[in-house]
């Protein structure tokens, strides 16, 4: 489903974010990407979403080589991905409902069908009652959950999450992990980056990819 082969990413500044990274994540697998900040976790996720391109090696997502996709093909790759951003990237000029609606508008869904899906997604993250609220009125945890709702509303096969529990209390973080687990159970492939080892404490047998200064240090075999 996601396959890196000897991927190297060097930024124009000369900073090498990833060196010779190779791994495979199978369909339906849930993997955690760990490492300190600056280890290259965000870069790796950006390569999967085609936001950055590798300097060497290949990044395969759903069988497509993302590194050589034409710009015009990128939107169609991204519609199969759900992305939970570190900084949420919510739009404060519209309410919660319309934030989640955006991917469906882009996908060209019909209004009735869209509304149903938006409410289902909001229900899943426990924000159904806040659909009329402006995101700015939500707490940090709620904003994170809103971002997750937007990422899953078009039912992606792959969900990428960049530090989804980064700034949250342990309780909130646990809630969010439970939400991700429920997606895992319905067969979504997940790749979640975190610098917070505490989150993993309750997941004994999970797939872990550990990065240190752009080099893959640990790659546990998929269990769970």
């Amino acid at each position, binding site marked *: 489903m996601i396959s890196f082969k000897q991927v190297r990413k060097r930024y124009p500044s000369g900073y090498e974010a990833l060196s010779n990274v190779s791994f495979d994540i199978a369909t339906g697998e849930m993997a955690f990407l760990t490492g300190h900040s600056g280890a290259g976790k965000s870069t790796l996720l950006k390569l999967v979403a085609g936001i950055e391109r590798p300097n060497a090696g290949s990044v395969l997502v759903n069988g497509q080589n993302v590194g050589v996709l034409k710009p*015009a093909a990128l*939107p169609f790759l991204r*519609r199969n991905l759900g992305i939970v951003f570190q900084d949420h990237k919510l739009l404060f000029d519209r309410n919660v409902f319309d934030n989640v609606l955006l991917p469906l*508008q882009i996908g060209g869904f019909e209004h009735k069908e869209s509304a149903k899906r938006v409410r289902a997604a909001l229900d899943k993250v426990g924000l159904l009652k806040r659909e009329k609220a402006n995101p700015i009125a939500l707490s940090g945890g709620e904003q994170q959950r809103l971002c997750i709702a937007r990422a899953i509303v078009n039912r992606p096969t792959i969900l990428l999450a960049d530090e989804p529990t980064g700034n949250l209390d342990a309780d909130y973080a646990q809630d969010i992990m439970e939400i991700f687990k429920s997606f895992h159970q319905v067969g979504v492939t997940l790749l979640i980056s975190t610098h917070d080892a505490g989150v993993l404490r309750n997941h004994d047998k999970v797939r872990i990819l550990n990065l240190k200064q752009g080099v893959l240090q640990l790659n546990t075999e998929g269990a769970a």
Partner: protein
Amino acid sequence: MKHWLTQHRLVLQSALRRIFNPPVAGLLNIMVIGIALSLPVGMYVLLQNAQGLLQQFSSTPQLSVFLNLTAKADDIDKLRKQFERHPSIASVTFVSRETALQQLKQNSELDDVISGLDKNPLPDAFLIEPNSSEPVVLNALRTELANLPQVEVAQLDSAWAYKLAALLKFANLAVLILASLLSLALIAVTFNTIRLQILTQRDEIEVSKLIGASNSFIRRPFLYFGALQGLLGGITAYLLISISLALLNYPLAALSQLYASSFTLHGLSLADSLSLLLFSLYLGWLGAWLSVSKHLAAIEPR
């Protein structure tokens, strides 16, 4: 197909909402476009009217052939037959010197002066309507008639009309240049409005790109906005012209009554009105397209 239509309808609605939000700025933009368009189009309308008026005079060009005062009844008869046979002449009317004097007496207040004359100073004359209204043919005919025996002068009555027509052609060109310049202004206005919009919607554009929006999806609302703004500007121009003409027609009616005629300014024809609206829509779209092409590429998610 239905999805596609729905999407376009939604984009159109949101573009309408955004044009009037904030309302004053939106209205001002539309006014600027409307006034810029109404200048050349208004001048075009006035020129059209002038040309229409000219047509009334010059559509039936006339030649006046004045005879020598010594011309006899025989000469007149001969000339009349010659004119009637002539291939370039449609009809001939003879105005005797007595008739001409009578007419002059009736039409002017020179009655006393004319009565004071000891003899009729006016010549016999033929009014000739040619077949053609081509200036070249008319001039040739005039020269030919002037050289006939017993003809003192042959005069082309509508010569002034041709000079005026040439002048109007020149004015038309001036209007065309003005229209081109103001069209550029319209494109510039739209370009700038869209640039500001793109700046204020930077976040939305970036997020949309990140979650799979194609470039055409992102471009669409801006193109609709530009086209709609242009169209509303065109409608404003149409209204401005219609109102101005209505205002002008009122005093014009009084004026033309003094000249014992009933001249009124005609507004834009249906075809011209539609052209105006389509053209303004197109210019708005073009300005938006240029702006979007230039500014959207700069927003790439990082």
